[in-house]
């Protein structure tokens, strides 16, 4: 009996391949029963997220046999292609523990250090636990890995610093206003960038959104999606006095927001802080608006640079995180390159992808 892991993730496989092996919530119970047969009654946890499908197994069946049985199963399902074989990683023994810790700490995630994976792994584990598909060994593995994953997140800064333009913008807005729940947002230009950034702001508590777009219908659509209100493009200047945050992302070839617009509403706004996020290229907001002391303007260049720095910062934490895993599993820190464990390789390839 040994610990095994078979998986496919975003690192090797494109979404068009991963989605074939993904297991929907509707199918999971049925699939668990089928997998129980494949493993000859072994213990297992199945993790299926948008970025990975992984089987953690404790079984007497060898890894090669197990993989072959799964391939037969997938062939029956009509989803197997011979080229897929190279995309799967196969781990045994301590490699499994190390890999699970990497997954749980976000070291193996597409967005390095992201926290959503913890919930996804916990849900997958508890689901299999409730169905009595896990035994003592897998329970110990997961409990220990949860604890190491938590240790990595608290003792390193793997989840600090923002890595996307949207989250950087939200952090800057929060640095200006503190709580975002009282702030009013105006979106000028209902593109994808605006939508994502507005969603990030709303996930941090912002409630009031006004959308303005040249095509009024698009403005209405986005406003409905965000639970806000739409205004006609000609009316955004009048609304300026009421808002605290502007997200601008139009396709305009010239400046949309100019100093004169701000000047007009300064007194009315009582010189309150105004945060402007300019996501457009070419820029929508004349940089001269920063002459007004209460205006804080951030364009795509600034936000991208910050996001890059955030990524760099998280990547630097990988070494510390790896050391915690090595310490937990009593592995000598310096390994020859050809002796690198599989999870090391996965973490390294993650490093390169970002």
């Amino acid at each position, binding site marked *: 009996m040994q610990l095994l892991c078979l998986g496919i993730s975003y690192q090797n496989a494109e979404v068009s391949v991963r989605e074939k092996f993904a297991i929907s919530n509707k199918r999971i119970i049925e699939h668990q029963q089928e997998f129980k047969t494949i493993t000859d009654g072994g213990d297992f946890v199945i993790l299926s997220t948008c970025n990975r499908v992984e089987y953690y197994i404790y079984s007497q069946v060898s890894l090669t046999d197990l993989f072959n049985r799964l391939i037969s199963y997938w062939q029956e399902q009509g989803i197997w292609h011979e080229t897929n074989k190279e995309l799967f990683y196969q781990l045994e023994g301590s490699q499994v523990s190390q890999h699970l810790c990497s997954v749980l700490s976000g070291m193996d995630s597409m967005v390095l250090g992201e926290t959503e994976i913890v919930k996804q792994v916990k849900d997958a584990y508890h689901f299999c636990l409730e169905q009595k598909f896990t035994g003592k060994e897998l329970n110990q593995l997961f409990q220990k890995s949860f604890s190491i994953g938590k240790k990595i997140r608290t003792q390193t*800064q793997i989840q600090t610093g923002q890595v996307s333009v949207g989250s950087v913008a939200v952090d*800057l807005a*929060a*640095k*200006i*206003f*503190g*709580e975002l729940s009282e702030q009013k947002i105006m979106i000028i230009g209902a593109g994808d960038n605006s939508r994502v950034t507005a969603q990030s702001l709303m996930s941090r508590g912002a409630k009031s959104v006004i959308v303005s777009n040249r095509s009024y219908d698009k403005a209405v659509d986005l406003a409905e999606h965000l639970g806000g209100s739409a205004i006609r493009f000609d009316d955004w200047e009048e609304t300026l006095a009421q808002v605290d945050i502007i997200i601008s992302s139009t396709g305009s070839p010239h400046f949309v927001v100019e100093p004169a617009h701000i000047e007009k509403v300064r*007194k009315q*706004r*009582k*010189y*309150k*802080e105004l945060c402007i996020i300019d996501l457009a290229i070419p820029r929508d907001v004349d940089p001269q608006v*920063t002459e*007004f*002391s*209460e205006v*804080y303007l*951030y364009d795509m260049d*600034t936000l991208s640079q*910050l996001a890059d*720095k955030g990524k760099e910062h998280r990547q630097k934490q990988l070494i510390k995180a790896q050391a915690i895993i090595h310490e937990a599993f009593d592995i000598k820190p310096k390994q020859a390159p050809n002796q690198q464990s599989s999870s090391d390789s996965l973490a390294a390839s993650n490093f390169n992808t970002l």
Partner: protein
Amino acid sequence: MVLTFIIILLATIGSVIHWNLATNNKRSLVSLVIVIGVFVLSTYQIYQRGQIAQQCPINTVQELLSFISWAILLFYLVIGRVYRVSFLGLLTLPAVVLFEVLGLLPSLQLAFPSADRAVNPILEWHVFLLLLAYGALGQAALAGVLFLQLHRVLKKSNFSNRLFSQMPPIGRLSEAIKRLLWLGFGLLTIGIILGFKLDYAADSFKFYLACGTWVSYLILIIVDKVRGFPLKLMSIWVLALYILNLILLVSI
């Protein structure tokens, strides 16, 4: 004197610890414990001086400065947690060091001519409230300094600044500055009203100074309330007014 040196030493150590924690993006209760320690020692220092003088210890500029630094610490402990601006400790402890060191200048240790007069509770309350007001307004000035630094970082997008991630948001600093301004102004008002009941008020430069301070802060508050103020301008005014008042107080 020994106690003053201990306060200076502890506040200096606290300043260094605060700075190290802030620049290394860390938090620790140690810094708060040191602020409390300096506050307790300052309280004891004032108590001891009061016992020696058998009245409120407000007979030298040094004593006034000690009182103000004590009040600044008091307001830091009150607002630091309430408005989640505990980062202000980074400036509060150096301010204490500055006030205490300044108080050691020989010329500031000379007793005021009126020091030997009989104990007068109204006078003591009057001065005590004015010094408390100076504490609140001093803390507002420190919050203003912090705002100006944060404002500079945010305007220039200089996010590599080592203190940036630990700094409280502008919204919280703004709230703290305005509340402290109101609090200081309120204390100043009550102190001045009490001052009118005193004989010395009519010919005391310090009293006129307090009245001048009161008028200047009144203007600031009214302008902010009626038409609004860019926070940068407000911070500069709060800081400038405070420095001016301190210089006048020390140079009397």
